[in-house]
């Protein structure tokens, strides 16, 4: 079932949590609402679930306007950030809750709940209380509870926020697989870009109650629409400079820039991702001399910090282990850095070279 959010605004006293947000979530998709805290992503999710009301605007499920429908009748499965399991009920009764309040027969409840517990790999733990479970297990109980009532859609608020890294990784993969099997429209909120990119079909980047960009993970990562998106999606090197007559001057770099041919100089900010900076032993066109300050292994890459004394800046660079080995990089080595690609953002319009 598709979700259509139209011109939704919400204000809490002086704080504008959502500002005229319009968003389409296609049926059967897995969508991530990505943004820093206070960006309005959780508020938006709660408005879709009916747990919060919008000041203006409307929410449609398929073609049906549900803006005035109560949370009880929306048929939405909601997983809370801290799970909100009923602490006085066993795991079994937690999952059974939605069926019990619908007066489903005991026989049927037992059948469905056992199936669900098996699906979330908690069979045999039905008699435990939530306090007796680990974080990851609680998360799966919350998910089973939300799925028990066969919801039209599944909404998850920071689903893995409170879990440690390993469990988080496992659950991500598992949830993605579950989504592929069930094809229920799913929206989840996260502040972790890695999580959003890994799981979602569609990423919605939010900031200050507004949507900055909507797109596939690839599109958002490769073509950030705004400087905020660029900045938020990880560690970037920021250069402040100006554009003039087809050239851009960014501190150390002076590069060709065809999109701005006027003689009048303008302020511009450029962002370069760490993996887009290349390191070499010898100087090349528009490269900068620097000195290696730090080398840290980070998974499949090496993170290298290079100090450029001439301009008093430090650059974060990511290179492959292979590249580092072939250059034989060591601390305090003199190297040359040059950018592979630079994204220039000017106050009104955004350009990419």
């Amino acid at each position: 079932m598709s979700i259509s959010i139209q011109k939704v605004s919400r204000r809490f006293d002086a704080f504008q949590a959502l500002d005229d947000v319009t968003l389409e979530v296609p049926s059967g998709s897995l969508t991530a609402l990505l943004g820093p805290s206070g960006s309005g992503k959780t508020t938006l999710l709660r408005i879709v679930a009916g747990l919060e009301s919008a000041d203006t605007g409307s929410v449609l499920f398929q073609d049906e306007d549900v803006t005035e429908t109560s949370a009880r009748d929306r048929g939405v499965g909601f997983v809370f950030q801290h799970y909100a399991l009923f602490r006085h009920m066993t795991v079994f009764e937690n999952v059974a809750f939605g069926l019990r309040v619908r007066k489903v027969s005991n026989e049927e409840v037992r059948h469905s709940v056992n199936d669900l517990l098996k699906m979330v790999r908690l069979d045999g733990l039905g008699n435990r209380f939530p306090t007796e479970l680990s974080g990851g297990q609680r998360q799966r109980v919350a998910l089973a509870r939300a799925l028990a009532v066969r919801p039209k859609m599944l909404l998850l608020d920071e689903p893995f926020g409170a879990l440690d890294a390993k469990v988080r990784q496992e659950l991500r993969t598992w949830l993605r697989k579950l989504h592929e099997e069930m094809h229920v429209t799913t929206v989840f909120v996260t502040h972790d870009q890695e999580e959003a990119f890994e799981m979602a079909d569609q990423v919605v980047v939010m900031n200050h109650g507004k949507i900055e960009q909507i797109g596939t993970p690839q599109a958002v990562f490769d073509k950030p629409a705004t400087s905020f998106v660029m900045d938020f999606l990880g560690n970037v090197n920021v250069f402040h400079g100006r554009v003039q007559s087809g050239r851009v001057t960014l501190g150390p770099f002076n590069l060709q820039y065809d999109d701005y041919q006027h003689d009048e100089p303008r302020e511009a900010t450029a962002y370069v991702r760490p993996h887009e900076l290349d390191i070499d032993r010898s100087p090349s066109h528009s490269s900068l001399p620097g000195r290696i300050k730090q080398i840290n292994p980070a998974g499949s890459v090496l993170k290298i910090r290079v100090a450029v004394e001439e301009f008093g800046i430090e650059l974060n660079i990511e290179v492959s282990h292979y590249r580092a080995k072939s250059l034989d990089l060591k601390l305090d080595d003199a190297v040359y850095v040059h950018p592979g690609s630079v994204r220039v953002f000017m106050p009104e319009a955004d350009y990419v070279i």
Partner: protein
Amino acid sequence: MHLSSRQTKRAGRMVANEPLWLRMILISLACLTATVLIIVPLVYVFVQAFADGPSAWWSQLFDDPDTRHAVFLTLTIAPLTVVLNTVFGLAAAWTITKFRFPGRTLLMTLLDMPFAVSPVVAGLMFVLLFGMQGYFGPALREWNIRIIFAWPGLVLATTFVTLPFVARELIPLMQALGSDEELAAISLGASPWQMFWRVTLPNIKWGLLFGIIQCHARAIGEFGAVKVVSGGISGETDTMPLRVEKLFQEYNNPGSFAVASVLTLIALATLGARILLERWAEYQIQSMTSEQETKP
């Protein structure tokens, strides 16, 4: 409850560092005060009540129709008051913890009013409002409803005095619990009524019971407010505490002490129930906080 026991433990460690003489002085001072102010009077009530043996005690209580009626009246008014205050306390705690509205802080302050106002003043307020010469007096007379110098007045005055107990117990508890579980219940399709019985009430039951016990104990012992609105009609509007005073004024010491001993027994039972409940509640809260602690 849990917090206070933790604080006592910490305090215990702190005092252990004080010099011995200071500890001895403080401990004996506390013991002396407890003995003089609590234990001696308590024992004396029972000594006096049973001075002529258990059968005399029994006949003092149940052979006098006025005393019998006082016991009956108190045991009727107290539960009525508890029911009223449970409903009110739940409603007030719900309103204050679940909604944000102008005047919310004022409402919370007003809840404490009955603790601040002297019970006699409270009684007087009701006489001035509902008495024959009072503001609603003529209307009530027309409808032939008696509030002052009758049992409804006693219930009203007692309810006022014990108003804060349940609400004050529930507000911090419900604030700590938050409303996520209730929202989860609603989004799973529960009606508000199902949500209350299946989620809210089980979560607050220990706090609620604790508030009810305190409210009940205070309702049984209330004297000042009740004294003003009762009019002291023997066999009609005398509650147990009023009966104690009246018998004492009539130089009927055995009768007076017999009723007093029953009041004391109820107080001791309340204390016992409280201790049991505190242990239970502590266990419950511990399991709740341990859940929160494992959440990183």
